[in-house]
């Protein structure tokens, strides 16, 4: 019954989405009365989709093996949290989650957004309905999550053990909220292009959505990076895997959008530009979804190869992106450019930020899709990895990080003061860092060296917007910006330190033997069996010490039974100045064990920086919403007084 109820809710929601689109056309053809119904329809559509998703969660929580998806991806012996998380750890379930977030976001827009013009809101809701309709069709035609099995098998096939990790259970929902949050910016942009109402009110309505989506994307990417770091046991935090790039590309576009939207909100300038970015940002979300969900790439994250679904998703992508671009081409040129600005101004700084982010986005996009393109055209197989991305995007990212320190000091419209005065101290810090690396570590590679330099500069420069201001009267948005920019410096320092100073040791050790890595001495004490609920393992006991005292680390190799798989569980110990990372490998015929040890100085700064960036976003979002609320309530009071 549960599965049937879910399917029925999905069909109804699809019907409502189609109805919502028809209402939009009616409403825009002069009959604004129907617009009221439209809000109700959008809310009902969101509620129905949420119901369908809840039904899937119940089916998974109960391990209802008569549902094909549960059978394929779950097992009755799994811990409860992974039973529930299994609902989105697969193709159909994650697409259902995707469309659920899309529809619920549409419902919230219908309930909340009062700031845009009514016609723009209607057109935006229509656009959101069309987006949802395509993905409903995809679910109902090509990818039904509620298909039944008869007779019901006794037990399921299990979930990929790599995915049985608390961090990963909540990783996809975070990223999806970010991806799909950008759909609101897309729909509002499409709506505004249709009605021509591209103004600072629109920017004000879009901004909380973009900011919220961006915060979640930042968190999702940071958490995903840490997951890959400790779960894969390779000691790396970013592999330039296409699936990682799929989340990085929307983030880059959203970061650019976040900055240009401020220009539109504050100055009414960069209209066409901001609309373009809003379209691109969600297009990148769809590209990411296509890459991950079509099975076109097979990597750690991609689960199934199914060309039919891939074609369907590609068609959806082409239709939506194509239509938005055509609309932009027709209407973009008619937008009046807003307030003018001088060459040296905050606006110019933000334009440069946008250009650099766009170039980096283009480079990542090219590198991610080029292998697919070449294989489709010539049949030749190639791969594009870290050497390409680091060499091409790395230097640009450094330039961008350098400019992040300068841009916020410029004033709107036209800069009259000498800008470089306050930058003396940060510049001095940067130069000292550079000199220190040259003297202390002459052999260091160029990118980490420059990374440390820029990080030292930016750490100081990012705080300058707060200098000589009363901290209590500084707007929260400014605080947020400072925290986020400081976070970039922190993350950059972590990446550079990790690249420059990591010590690695790979060797065979017998029980009682000691290996050294960085400042550490690591003794292999024993190797013993261990067991968990659905796995068995071999576990090494390592005693690590530097100077006096010691810590025990217990890396494992785990053997899962449903499905049969081995995974490496690295043992990591965190200290204020770095992490000790240990992995146990295979047994050696001579009776020893392979051990892989890393000492990674300040590697934790990478994720601390990511968290700071997200925190800065959250502070800014809170500030904006709070101000909005206060303004709204004070204007309501004013109205009440007036009509009293």
């Amino acid at each position: 019954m549960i599965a049937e109820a879910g399917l029925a809710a999905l069909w109804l929601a699809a019907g409502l989405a189609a109805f919502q689109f028809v209402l939009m056309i009616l409403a825009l053809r002069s009959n604004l009365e129907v617009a009221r119904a439209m809000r109700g329809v959008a809310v009902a559509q969101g509620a129905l989709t949420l119901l369908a998703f809840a039904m899937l969660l119940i089916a998974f929580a109960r391990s209802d093996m008569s549902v094909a998806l549960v059978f394929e991806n779950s097992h009755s012996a799994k811990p409860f949290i992974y039973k529930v998380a299994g609902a989105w750890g697969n193709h159909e379930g994650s697409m259902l989650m995707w469309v659920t977030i899309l529809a619920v976001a549409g419902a919230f827009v219908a309930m909340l957004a009062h700031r845009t013009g009514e016609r723009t809101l209607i057109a935006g809701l229509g656009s959101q309905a069309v987006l949802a309709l395509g993905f409903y069709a995809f679910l109902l035609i090509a990818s039904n999550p509620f298909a039944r099995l008869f007779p019901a098998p006794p037990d399921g096939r299990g979930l990929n053990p790599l995915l049985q990790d608390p961090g990963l259970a909540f990783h996809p929902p975070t990223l999806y909220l970010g991806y799909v949050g950008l759909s609101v910016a897309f729909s509002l942009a499409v709506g505004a292009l249709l009605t021509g109402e591209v103004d600072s009110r629109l920017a004000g309505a879009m901004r909380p959505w973009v900011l919220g989506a961006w915060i979640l994307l930042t968190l999702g990417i940071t958490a995903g990076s840490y997951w890959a770091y400790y779960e894969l046991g390779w000691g790396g935090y970013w592999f330039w895997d296409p699936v990682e790039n799929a989340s990085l590309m929307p983030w880059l576009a959203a970061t650019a959008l976040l900055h240009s939207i401020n220009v539109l909100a504050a100055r009414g300038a960069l209209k066409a530009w901001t609309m373009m970015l809003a379209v691109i940002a969600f297009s990148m979300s769809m590209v990411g979804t296509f890459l991950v969900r079509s099975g076109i790439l097979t990597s750690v994250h991609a689960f199934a190869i199914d060309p039919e679904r891939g074609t369907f998703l590609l068609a959806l992508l082409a239709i939506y992106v194509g239509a938005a671009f055509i609309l932009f081409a027709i209407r973009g040129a008619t937008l009046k450019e807003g307030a003018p600005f001088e060459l040296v101004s905050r606006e110019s700084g933000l334009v440069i930020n946008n250009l650099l982010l766009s170039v980096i986005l283009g480079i990542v996009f090219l590198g991610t899709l080029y292998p697919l393109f070449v294989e489709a055209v010539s049949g030749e197989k190639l791969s594009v990895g870290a050497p390409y991305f680091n060499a091409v995007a790395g230097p640009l990212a450094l330039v961008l990080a350098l400019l992040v320190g300068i841009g916020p000091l410029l004033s709107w419209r036209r800069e009259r003061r000498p800008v470089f005065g306050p930058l003396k101290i940060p510049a001095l810090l940067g130069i000292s860092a550079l000199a220190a690396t040259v003297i202390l570590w002459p052999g260091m590679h160029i990118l980490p060296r420059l990374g440390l330099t820029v990080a030292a500069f930016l750490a100081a420069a990012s705080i300058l917007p707060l200098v000589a201001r009363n901290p209590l009267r500084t707007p929260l948005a400014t605080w947020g910006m400072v925290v986020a920019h400081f976070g970039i410096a922190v993350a950059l320092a972590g990446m550079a330190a990790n690249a420059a100073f990591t010590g690695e040791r790979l060797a065979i050790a017998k029980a009682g033997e000691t290996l050294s890595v960085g400042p550490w001495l690591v003794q292999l004490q024993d190797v013993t069996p261990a067991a968990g609920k659905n796995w068995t393992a071999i576990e090494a006991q390592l005693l690590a010490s530097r100077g006096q005292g010691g810590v025990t680390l217990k890396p494992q190799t785990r053997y899962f039974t449903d499905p049969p798989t081995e995974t490496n569980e690295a043992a990591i110990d965190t200290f204020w100045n770095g992490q000790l990372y240990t992995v146990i490998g295979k047994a050696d015929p001579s009776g020893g064990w392979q051990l892989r040890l890393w000492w990674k100085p300040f590697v934790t700064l990478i994720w601390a920086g990511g968290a700071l960036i997200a925190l800065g976003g959250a502070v800014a979002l809170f500030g904006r919403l709070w101000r909005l609320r206060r303004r709204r309530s004070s204007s309501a009071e004013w109205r009440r007084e007036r009509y009293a």
Partner: protein
Amino acid sequence: MKPKNQRLVLVSAALVAVLVAALLGMWGLRNQASFFYTPADIAAGKASEGQAARLGGMVEKGSIRHEPDGVTIRFVVTDGKAATPVVFRGIVPDLFREGSGAVAEGRLERGTFVADTILAKHDERYMPPELGNLAAEHKAGKTLER
């Protein structure tokens, strides 16, 4: 700046950005993209020495040898037509076995493929995409089938 000029400047800046991204990308791809080869390709001299590349095929039965340091292994990858010796220092993936498929990432050095990473089918469902095709092409993929 007049609004009209401003738009012109912005549009040209955007175009320049797109162009720069494309050029930088192309340049990077020409230097850094690593091609996928089979042992037959390498025997035919398609791979140049020192260039980043991937090698895929079956691990030949009886070919895995451990060096005395315990962490370096040597083995031979074959596609039925030719064979390439591979050397790898590190922990091999769980399902790396003789007679099974593997992809090595690294570069060719004096006829031997020096691998930085070995990818193998690492669970029931995943296998490196190149191997899927290879198995179909050479009908040697029995061990790759579920």
